[in-house]
């Protein structure tokens, strides 16, 4: 009977890598006569789209001419068994994977491999693994004048797979790859990229649906012109600090940064601007142009009283919402942009608070909106 060569690879807690070679008759399922113990050559982990993680192990197997059996087992680890595959990278002769057998009740499989010649065969074994978490975070430090930022991008990997990884190369798909040891249940946070002196745009937006105060935002352009734009920024928490006059860092606030591809802008809500006082009033609300039983038009006048207690001039954006019907802004003191049938933005410049002035100047602006064909 044609003898089989049997190699066993097991992934298990504290048995990170052992690979065993055996010679056994074809009809024997006993895994006996184990003679070699090749290690993983290299192991890489690709943090792919979504939460998926692909592991690729590179190993050198010493195969015999003819048919060889290679066992691969993953007790107590979270490998997706249906995803395990073996690829022949380099071999002295033709190597063919003939079939894969899955024994009952075990997290294991056996490849039957036919080899033209005796000798070492470089293979890559890949599989999808679950419970390998990752998250992304940003440490943003603004200079004292809030014109430039230092941005540090961190990646945290969390290993709950049940497996210990030694010399694991983690490929993030952006920034720099890194090699690390990672025990089961261990998490590791690493700096993936750092950007210095990044110009930042700061502005204020008021939306009466958010409450009585305007919100202050930082806008970071992920572009090459802005000394960034080398990769898409992942969604993650950004903690924002500012340097005080002595160079000490003071925490300003934090926000979830949305995924920001190259060329796009990340908007971060830093905090409430309590030095801007805004009062919004409806000064007129009348129906007119009545037709038939209920058909009519409507006119509303909105007025804003705004006081800027800051000692610098700022531009305030006012967000307004409409019912999605047929309407038109017929009159406005402010520059405005109609975003869509439900939203418009008005822009108003607020002068700085005058030093030594007893009262802050109150700015009053208003706009009129007419809605048509209402019933």
């Amino acid at each position: 009977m044609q003898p089989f060569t049997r190699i066993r690879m097991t992934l298990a807690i504290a048995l990170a890598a052992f690979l065993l070679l055996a010679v056994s008759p074809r009809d024997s399922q006993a895994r006996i006569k184990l003679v070699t113990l090749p290690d993983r050559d290299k192991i890489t982990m690709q943090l792919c789209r979504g939460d998926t993680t692909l592991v690729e192990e590179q190993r050198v197997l010493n195969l015999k001419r003819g048919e060889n059996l290679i066992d691969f087992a993953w007790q107590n680890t979270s490998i997706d068994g249906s995803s395990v595959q073996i690829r022949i990278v380099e071999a002295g002769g033709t190597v063919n994977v003939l079939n894969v057998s899955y024994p009952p009740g075990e997290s294991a499989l056996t490849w039957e491999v036919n080899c033209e010649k005796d000798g070492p065969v470089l293979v890559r074994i890949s599989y999808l693994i679950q419970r390998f978490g990752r998250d992304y975070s940003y440490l943003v430090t603004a200079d004292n004048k809030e014109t430039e930022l230092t941005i540090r991008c961190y990646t945290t990997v969390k290993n709950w797979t049940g497996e210990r990884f030694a010399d694991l190369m983690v490929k993030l798909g952006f920034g720099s790859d890194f090699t690390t040891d990672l025990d089961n249940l261990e998490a590791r946070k690493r700096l993936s990229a750092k950007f210095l002196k990044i110009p930042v745009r700061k502005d204020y937006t008021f939306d009466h649906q958010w409450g009585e105060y305007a919100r202050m935002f930082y806008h970071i352009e992920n572009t090459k012109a802005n000394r960034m734009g080398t990769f898409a920024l992942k969604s993650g928490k950004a903690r924002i600090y500012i340097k005080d006059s002595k160079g000490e860092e003071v925490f300003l606030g934090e926000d979830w940064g949305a995924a920001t591809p190259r060329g796009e802008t990340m908007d971060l809500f830093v905090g409430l601007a309590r030095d801007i006082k805004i009062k919004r009033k409806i000064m007129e609300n009348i129906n007119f142009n009545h037709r038939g039983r209920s058909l009519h038009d409507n006119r509303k006048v909105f007025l804003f009283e705004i006081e800027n207690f800051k000692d610098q001039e700022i531009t305030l954006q006012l967000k307004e919402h409409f019912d999605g019907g047929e309407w038109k802004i017929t009159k406005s003191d402010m520059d405005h942009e109609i975003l869509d049938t439900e939203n418009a933005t008005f822009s108003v410049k607020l002068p700085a608070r005058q030093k030594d002035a007893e009262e802050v100047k109150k700015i009053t602006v208003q706009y009129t909106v007419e809605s048509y064909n209402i019933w």
Partner: protein
Amino acid sequence: MKRFVLLFSLVLLLGTGSAFSAIDMTTLPPRDTVQLTIYNGEDITLVKESRHLSFKKGINRIQFSWSNTLIDPTSIRFAFKSHGDKVELLDTIYPPNRKETLIWHIDSQVNSREDGAVKVQITYFTSGISWAADYAAFLEEDHKTMGLDGYVKIINHSGEDYENAQFRLIVGRINLVEKIAALAQKGVMYRDLNGKDRALYGKGYANRVRRAEMAMEKAKKDGGQRAIVKEGLSEYFIFTIEGTDTVKHRWQKRLPSFSVKGLPVEVFYKLDDTKWNQTIHKLLRFKNNKHEVKKDEKTLGSEPLPDGVIKVFTRSKDNTLWYEASQYMKYAGIGQEIDVDLGPEDRMLVERKRLRLKKINVRLDIHGSVIGWRTQEFFQTKITNRLPLASRLEVYRTFPGKFKIIESTLDFYQDDHDTYYFSMNLKPDEKVTLRYQVDTKNGKNRKNNDW
């Protein structure tokens, strides 16, 4: 060895058929060959096994038992494959109070000591064995070609070990009026058999199977890798795995079915509210067609691709794999186009707005109530391609009611009665703004067909 009892005993009787007193001789002949034809649409497998039995002249009694298996008793058939008309099956008895057992009475003019053993074939349906196809696709970085590996996996939960069996896999959907698993547990009598179940392995079927077997014989061995020979069979396709395999009870075995390289593909993007809200999805499109290959390389387009899970990876230049998606792929006939959804693509950005709405032609009835009007809506969709490759995008829009696209900055095409789509090519970092006007007639204005 068999895991459960599939007992096959031969008892020779002397005298007439009515004298069934057993003589002390029982044999358990091993299977010579066993062949399984597994259907993936239904839980049914046709098992065909051949054995050599020794007979004496006169009436021979053969007992066949199948305890702890999922064999359909109504399907068991017995046939002679040698010694012509010198042996004849007289009857089949299902003894009372003995489950999962039958007895065949055979009138033999053969004395095996002189004439040799008689080759017999036993066929039956069993349930609990299934097969499934699956695929691994390796998309090249330029998104123009990919490699595709196909596999078949055999799963045995039948209660029986099948050793050194030949496997044939049927791609297609057969019609069954009863489930084999139910029949296996019901113990139906032989008289319940109808001819319909037998039709599957009637003459025409057998001829085609023979051709598949001949094709298999011709298939050259390639480095020990066994070929899977594929042939059309009525509405189905039969995949015959060269050589024999052992699949024990509760084991699974996966075999390579094909491997093609350089398969032309198109990767494109799609925005379809009805499926994915406002998220753009990445799609992979290829055809089950023949394509240009190097000598000795294989190509698609010679057999259907059975439905199964496809796992798609992108292969970078350093041969590193990046996982894209895992999707259930529907059956694809020869020449059929296949779209695989690779999931959301957040580097293709979309911002859609309704810029303006206007109501015109408002009609009132004699009581002054609104009975009809026409809505004019002005839409804008801004798309930005932040992918490193030039990409094609299809934007699908579905509108309710009686509507018409009045004008558009891009050509549009009708998909169905309420869906239109726009198609555009975007270079890396290119931004495209699509604007269009849609008018909708409402109320009694719907009756008017003039726009």
